């Protein structure tokens, strides 16, 4: 459920051990909190009949996918984002239930209020997980580990749900740590332990390395963090391009990204997957109309102003194309938004083959930083050489 891109905002890695030193000073204390099987746990909490049973939240039929699976379901290999049909095959007793996003949002508000009790530096990644920078111990609790324990306790008390937490000195390690003892677990990676922790880890556990990435790494003889750390930056750059810098640092347990309490939204959009592929002009226009309604409502809710509109289509062979248009000024109203979306669609007609998904996005938002340099301003002034009091 984490859509951040770890490579986009990392700083340039040093070509010697210098950056290691910067990190090992351990100035920061970061906690990553992740609710355990969030949607499924909420459903089990609110419907006692589901407790102890394999539960999946999501649509059961046709092209439904599993949005979340309970731990009972995970034993059968059911995973989120898996097609429901596959899940049902793996676990014939799997109970599908409808999602209740209103409830998830309410719980999300509850846990965020708990986070904010301890620090204003909360970076939510989704409804059920967040990074917290507790370098400033505002409540005088004494240690980040103790704060993480208190947070887990309060979440349990106030929501009757469990969360796992990871504590470390950067975001990358904190996230790995929260995953370590799931569910209902806590793991601490102390300064100096990061590199060793990462070394033993299969690369698949690294945030940003999916099945395909892991496959490619396996072909290059990289199975673990240690294997990755053994490769030099040149090798990584020639094989992984811009992803190399992130990998280089990750393999050493280094991550200088700050916790950003006010992440700047870069786009607002939405997309739909259809029950049946569509190709006729009339059906496409109808669909676009519905997507415009949904997305424009989101734009209004977010009070977003932007000047680039992007139309995305995924064909039934899973290839995808996008068409975008930028205005010299912000899009002013829904009619303009609709007519540009429509124009983008007309340009692409007739389609070479039916599509399974259509999406529309407004980006280039006013006040957002398109070059990603918002980073510097957001960093809490932690000069590398200047030591911190708090």
């Amino acid at each position, binding site marked *: 459920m984490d859509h951040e891109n770890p490579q986009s905002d990392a700083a340039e890695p040093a070509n010697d051990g210098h950056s290691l030193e910067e990190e090992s000073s351990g100035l920061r204390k970061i906690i990553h909190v992740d609710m355990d099987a969030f949607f499924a746990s909420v459903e089990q909490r609110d419907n006692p009949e589901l407790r102890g049973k394999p539960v999946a939240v999501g649509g059961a039929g046709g092209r439904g996918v599993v949005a979340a699976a309970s731990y009972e379901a995970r034993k059968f290999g059911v995973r989120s984002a898996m097609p429901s049909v596959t899940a049902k095959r793996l676990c014939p007793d799997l109970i599908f239930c409808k999602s209740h996003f209103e409830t998830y949002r309410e719980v999300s508000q509850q846990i965020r209020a708990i986070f904010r009790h301890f620090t*204003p530096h909360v970076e939510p990644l989704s409804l059920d997980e967040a990074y917290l920078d507790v370098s400033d*111990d*505002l409540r*005088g609790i004494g240690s980040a580990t103790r704060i993480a324990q208190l947070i887990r306790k309060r979440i349990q008390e106030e929501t009757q749900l469990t969360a796992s937490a990871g504590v470390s000195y950067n975001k990358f390690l904190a996230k790995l740590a929260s995953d370590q003892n799931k569910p209902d677990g806590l793991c601490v990676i102390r300064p100096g332990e990061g590199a060793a922790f990462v070394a033993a880890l299969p690369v698949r556990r690294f945030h940003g390395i999916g099945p395909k990435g892991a496959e490619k790494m396996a072909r290059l003889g990289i199975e673990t963090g240690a294997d990755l750390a053994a490769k030099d930056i040149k090798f990584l750059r020639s094989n992984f391009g811009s992803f190399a810098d992130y990998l280089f640092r990750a393999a050493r347990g280094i991550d200088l990204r700050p916790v950003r309490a006010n992440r700047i939204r870069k786009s607002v959009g939405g997309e739909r997957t259809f029950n049946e592929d569509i190709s006729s002009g009339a059906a496409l226009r109808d669909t676009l109309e519905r997507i415009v309604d949904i997305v424009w409502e989101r734009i209004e809710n977010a009070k977003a102003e932007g000047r680039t509109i992007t139309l995305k289509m995924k064909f039934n062979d899973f290839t995808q194309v996008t068409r975008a248009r930028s205005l010299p000024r912000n899009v002013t109203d829904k009619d303009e938004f609709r007519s540009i979306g429509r124009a983008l669609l007309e340009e692409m007609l007739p389609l070479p083959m039916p599509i399974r998904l259509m999406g529309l996005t407004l980006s280039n938002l006013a006040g957002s930083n398109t070059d990603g340099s918002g980073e510097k301003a957001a960093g*809490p002034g932690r000069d*590398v050489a*200047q*030591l*911190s009091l*708090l």
Partner: protein
Amino acid sequence: MKATIERATLLRCLSHVQSVVERRNTIPILSNVLIDADAGGSLKVMATDLDLQVTENMAAASVEMPGAITVSAHLLFDIARKLPEGSQVSLETADNRMAVKAGRSRFSLPTLPRDDFPVIVEGDLPTSFELPAKTLAELIDRTRFAISTEETRYYLNGIFLHVSDEDQPVLRAAATDGHRLARFTLPRPDGAEGMPDVIVPRKAVAELRKLLEESLDANVQIDLSASKIRFTMGGEGGVVLTSKLIDGTFPDYSRVIPTGNDKLLRIDPRSFYEAVDRVATIATEKTRAVKMSLETDKVTLSVSSPDNGTAAEELAADYGSDGFEIGFNANYLKDILGQIDGDTAELHLADAGAPTLIRKDDKSQALYVLMPMRV
């Protein structure tokens, strides 16, 4: 409204309130001052930025017609500044305009209705005490330089005031930006017992300090709740500054004040300041660090910059512990040394990575903690 007022009185009053008004405002009325003439012959002038408001009463030469109106603060201030000394200024409203007349000058300024002017609702201010203006001014001077300007850490963007029971009850002011900390302690004034911990925002601190400068021999009345604070200077008819407080938790700073630092350096703060300032000439924006090498009764300051070369200076000092090296941000060091008057400053050091405690002596009301830089 129609009133006449001496130019000097008007100017002094506007100079007090106009700096509250931001130069750029998205809400037009926030560019204005409220002028309220009452039948008793006094004129109330008020300015606000929604978080902070300053009100001053001044005696008018005459009030011909009571009433209230708002008009651009900066325009009226600039006009008052340029009018000839000793002139009588007449202010009169008609048809959504305010006519300003003095001698042969005539101005007609646009106005906005007084009812649109936002006034901070003070609510109940249960804690009340008085402080000599001089004491309050010193409290501000000794701490404000350490206030953080980093907006993400908004809870550090002000001076933290709280009472505490040490050997005797005290009122404490503290400010920190995470690199240095300044704390000022005074005996708890009557009426301050049980007061909530509050953080007074930077802008309120700056405006208050300016206002104090004009009444340093008087007392200041302070009234506060957990969300608002009001400073009254010059009693009835004086200046009143009301500010919202920062809604946040100030870190428990007492734990960063070192108690066991065993290396004591005694040094003349002025010559130390000047030497730091001299060697820091070499320091660039990136390398603001000044290295201090401590040996028996001697401190050597040095700076080296890849671009600008090197600098070094030796100073006599009183030091008897083991020699070692430590680095500090030159500006931070100067900020603190600049606060210490007298012939000696005490630096209590532990090691190159630990907070250093700086003060005049163990009786001084002000205490500073400075975190080193790695050099």
